[in-house]
């Protein structure tokens, strides 16, 4: 299968990429191409112009400091999983290692995953749990979009047509205990439920609980009800089952030919409980 014809520009700078996006409203950014090209081959997408952003040096940034971890939009999963970011955000590298297969991980990018906004994207749960900030460039300048506002609808983000994602910022420090657990669809490998979980335990008290779920719901979501039930409570007195059950109710679920709404909610609950139990036992 061959995509419909399009023009191709390899941008050297963010400005150059933005120029193409501005000139042609049917132009699209090309990163790893592992969501866009399959869609173009099936003619589900027919952009007139692709702007390849993968060789813009700024988009390959990886930086760590005491108050922020910066990941360029074109950083590939395979690069991230080998990076020192595992030391401060094991959650992120754990999640990335569970995406697809080695070949896909050598092409797919953090920014592509964010901009594609598949409601089962593994990184969606990580972005939401960490309160990541999406740094976006347009002719109007730079703006930062919080993760909570990024995912607008399935495959739709808060990004305007002439905007591009430059990097993702993860505020630091994050809670020390972190994990990403995934229940993968046996055929596609996408998350039927993926849970990003973080918390601290100080003198037997649970603090700073962050829980987000991808795949199970119609949209990825933050399980704030679970966070509220757990934060500030003694570890010995909480019931993770109960918290996970409340948290799962923060999502909206749809039934389809394969999975019922109840099954999906239950899966979100079970995976959240497992993630919490894992973190408590660390």
């Amino acid at each position: 299968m061959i995509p419909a014809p399009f023009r191709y520009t390899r941008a050297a700078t963010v400005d150059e990429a933005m120029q193409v996006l501005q000139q042609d409203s049917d132009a699209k950014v090309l990163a790893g191409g592992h969501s866009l090209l399959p869609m173009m081959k099936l003619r589900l997408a027919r952009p007139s112009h692709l702007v390849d952003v993968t060789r813009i040096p700024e988009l390959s940034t990886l930086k760590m400091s005491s108050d922020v971890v910066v990941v360029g939009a074109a950083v590939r999963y395979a690069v991230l999983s080998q990076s020192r970011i595992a030391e401060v955000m094991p959650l992120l590298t754990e999640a990335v290692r569970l995406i697809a297969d080695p070949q896909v991980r050598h092409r797919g990018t953090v920014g592509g995953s964010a901009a594609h906004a598949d409601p089962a994207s593994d990184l969606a749960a990580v972005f939401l749990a960490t309160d990541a900030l999406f740094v976006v460039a347009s002719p109007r300048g730079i703006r930062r979009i919080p993760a909570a506002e990024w995912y607008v609808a399935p495959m739709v983000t808060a990004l305007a047509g002439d905007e591009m994602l430059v990097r993702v910022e993860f505020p630091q420090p994050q809670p020390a205990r972190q994990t990403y657990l995934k229940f993968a669809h046996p055929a596609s490998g996408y998350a039927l439920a993926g849970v990003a979980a973080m918390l601290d335990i100080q003198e037997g008290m649970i603090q700073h609980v962050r829980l987000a779920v991808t795949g199970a719901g119609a949209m990825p979501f933050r399980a704030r009800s679970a966070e509220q039930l757990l934060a500030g409570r003694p570890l010995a007195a909480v019931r993770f089952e109960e918290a996970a059950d409340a948290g799962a109710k923060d999502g909206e679920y749809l039934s389809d030919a394969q999975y019922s709404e109840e099954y999906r909610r239950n899966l979100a609950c079970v995976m959240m409980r497992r993630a919490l139990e894992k973190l408590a036992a660390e």
Partner: protein
Amino acid sequence: MEARLSIQITVNGKTVSDHVEPRTLLAHYLRDGLGLTGTHIGCDTSQCGACTVLLDGEPVKSCTVLAVQADGTQVMTVEGLAAPGTAHPVQQAFQEMHGLQCGFCTPGVLMLSTWLVQQHQTSDLRHIRESLDGIICRCTGYENIVKAIARAGELAVDEPAAPAASQREGVPS
């Protein structure tokens, strides 16, 4: 049709300059443009891995990469593993362990395996199995593929380095 763009790719050690339509997939360019039909197209939907080649030393599915995206890179296909009549340690291991049946998936499997060997990631069978996630083989049941990859790791330790890229064959000049 959109204007052709010029590309320069080093394929199996030989640099080729060409003009391609932006929509030309790397898999098609290798097969139809260069006649390197060892790279197979199985699913054409990024699932099966038969089209796997090494791009700057890393395994990628060439049905999901544009030829223009490979401009300026080094590509290695199954033809680049060894000169005709000789076998790369990975090929030798697949022969010894019966790691193939119909052979359709094999070019992609060999390229992924070569990468695993180069990365010294062949000692843990569980890791080998996980690494085969992006490979679909309809024949072997994977058991012998896993054994062959483990064996390839052993052979590569014993063998001298592969022939220099420039001595390899497989690219029309």
